[in-house]
């Protein structure tokens, strides 16, 4: 047992910190820090800065721009990125479809897609969930029927995050409706969002934003060469991909940043003649969330320091569950610090309410999502009870 990072890893951490805080445009990082939406151009600009430095997808194969890093190095990379308020590389690209194409695509597909995926020349979106297939993803009903050299896709996807920016979609489709197990008859197709027959309908969320969409497919013709991997093996690729989705989902660095902001806000708001920061109940609430977050960071470190042999650490399921709860606790705390100012959520230029207080409630409402996506917290509890406790 040893607490300190090795001198090499200390240097690595410093290198990451310096890069993220000096090379990614300040304007973009400030926008992330303010919890305001980024434009498509800002996402693209930030990702290209990372890609140019070879820091966009360290977990990819080295041949395709990855780094031969340990899980601990990747953890440090991600934490420093979050602490510096750098927008993370688009997950649909670098965590989801990229690794799947690298692992299961043919050489032609790798050459065709991977460089553009890394550089965000192609913006990918995810066609997984359907109105009747949420946590029970394998129940999906969108079909693809072979017709000559094409697949013909019909059906509907939903919760398609940032689909409005997307150039391409990776889509789970049912290719064998007669398969014995519903998981068996699913394939993974990729196609452009401007293919004839694709319609996108934005879904307004309770925070007033439009980050998710419904996507409809009506006789969309997809060339056979756009099948990734083998026909009817799509479920395996989806599991592989969602495994990657859980990596980094604890978002410790981002919540740390939120708590630092909460402390700053608590100094600015006065209640009963003194700053909220001096109110023992407020201080205790911050300290308790912070302590739980330290524990989570340490749990994450235990997991990454130990996962070198490839087997997932049993405590890894804790990361999503507690990580999402702490993100939600921190956003709720900030709404409470804002108090009545939080009502000015959609106030415009002339408002005297500080920007953080205006953003507080939309952020809190938006973050109800984090205990739902990526395998809901109830799914995580099922995994813990089943695979860890044997219940």
């Amino acid at each position, binding site marked *: 047992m040893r607490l300190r990072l090795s001198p090499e890893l200390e240097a690595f951490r410093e290198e990451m910190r310096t890069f993220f805080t000096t090379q990614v445009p300040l304007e973009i990082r400030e926008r992330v820090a303010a919890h305001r939406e980024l434009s498509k151009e800002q996402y693209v600009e930030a990702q290209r800065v990372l890609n140019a430095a070879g820091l966009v997808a360290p977990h990819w194969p080295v041949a395709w721009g990855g780094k031969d890093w340990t899980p601990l190095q990747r953890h440090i990379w991600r934490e420093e990125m979050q602490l510096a308020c750098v927008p993370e590389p688009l997950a649909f690209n670098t965590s989801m479809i990229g690794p799947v194409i690298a692992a299961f695509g043919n050489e032609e597909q790798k050459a065709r897609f991977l460089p553009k995926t890394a550089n965000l020349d192609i913006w990918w979106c995810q066609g997984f969930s359907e109105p009747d297939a949420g946590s029970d993803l394998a129940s999906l009903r969108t079909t693809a029927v072979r017709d000559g050299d094409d697949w013909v896709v019909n059906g509907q996807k939903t919760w398609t995050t940032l689909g409005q920016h997307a150039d391409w979609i990776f889509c789970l489709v049912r290719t064998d409706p007669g398969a014995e197990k519903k998981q068996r008859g699913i394939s993974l197709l990729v196609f452009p969002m401007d293919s004839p027959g694709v319609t996108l309908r934005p879904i307004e969320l309770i925070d007033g934003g439009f980050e998710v969409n419904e996507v409809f497919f009506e006789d969309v013709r997809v060339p056979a060469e756009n099948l990734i991997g083998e026909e009817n093996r799509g479920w395996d690729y989806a599991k592989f991909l969602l495994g990657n989705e859980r990596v980094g989902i604890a978002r410790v660095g981002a919540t740390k940043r939120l708590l630092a902001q909460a402390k700053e806000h608590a*100094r600015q708001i006065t209640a009963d003649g003194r700053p909220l920061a001096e109110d023992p109940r407020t201080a205790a609430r*911050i300290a308790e969330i*912070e302590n739980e977050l*330290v524990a989570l960071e340490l749990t994450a470190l235990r997991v990454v320091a130990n996962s070198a042999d490839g087997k997932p650490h049993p405590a890894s399921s*804790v990361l999503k569950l507690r990580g999402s709860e702490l993100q939600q606790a921190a956003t709720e705390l900030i709404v409470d610090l804002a108090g009545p100012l939080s009502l000015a959520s959609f106030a415009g230029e002339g408002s005297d309410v500080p920007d953080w207080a205006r953003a507080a409630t939309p952020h809190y409402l938006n973050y109800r999502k984090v205990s739902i996506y990526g395998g809901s917290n109830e799914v995580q509890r099922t995994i813990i009870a089943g695979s860890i406790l044997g219940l």
Partner: protein
Amino acid sequence: MNFDYDSEQNDLREAVRGLLARAYADSEQRRAVVKAEPGFDEKTWSRLAEMGLLGLPFAEEDGGMGAGPIEVAIVAEEIGRVLAPEPFIETVVLAGGLIAAVGTVEQRGEILGGISEGTTIAVFAHAEPGTRWSPTAAGVTATQSGDGWTLTGVKEPVPSGARADVLVVSAVVDGGGTGLFLVRGDASGLTRTGYRTHDGTRAAHVRFESTPAVALGTGGDRTAAVERALAETRIAYGHEALGAMDTALRTTAEYLKTRKQFGVTLNKFQALTFRAADMYVSLEQARSMALWASMVQDAGGDVVQAADRARLQVSRASRHIGKEAIQLHGGIGVTAEYSVGHYTSRLTAIDHLLGDGDWALARLAAAVDSYETVDPLGAPYA
């Protein structure tokens, strides 16, 4: 950074686990031991000494093994796993820790040597009715008398206070401050009334009436040494609690798999399995923090603040797991005959010995605005 035990530490863990598994193979054995005086098994105590565990953290020149806080934590966790009632933490970590920190060469050699050999049980007489969890004394006063001192006042509850051969006593010294003193079990003017506690261990009411005492070390105000020893002991208790929580959760999971109601085993009820899953989350979060606190101590970092962090995390987890373990068992969980309730009882005792979660939280909250973010691998911890 590395959270794994090395091979020697793994061997130590296996050895301690083996010894304690033989001593407390089932909860009946423990019940029999804690029913009789002195509330623990003197033979097991000797075996712990033979294995070198009672001198684990002491310097070799003081008769010890020269091991560190990680090794102490390993022993504490194994003690918690079977609820071994032997006063390892009280004697070796707390009283021994104080003697090691401030004792003279002669005091260290004699008392730490005796503790290491299993012939001396020393405890810290510190708690006083009407105060709580302070590093200072208020109700026992020390008066200089020739070359030595006399103590007057009451300490209670003093864990294993009636059985102890040597008491390390905190007392108000002339001119203010908290001094530390050694009192022999057979000293004149010393009255000890022992009693059982809810968790099966023993505590005592200890009255000093002009009781002769010797200053531990060179005398003077020892508040800082007490604060530090209490912090190190909180960390060790955190590991004992970890072992106890681990067993409480395992026992509960096993019960859910075997107990049948409505014609099916209880693990068919998601209302129950989800609660067990949450217990696991609490346990692993507490484990991360307890391991870290020992690593901070090992690295020479801010052990007091690390101990507060661990105390808060372990306290919250102990209450959660202790209460749920009983509830998920049902009525059998509150019987003395069945094991799991005893785990909850011991976890409750640990939680109140040296500061509970809210107490630790208040200390952390007082400092929370003085820094921006916590880096558990950086200053002031590493």
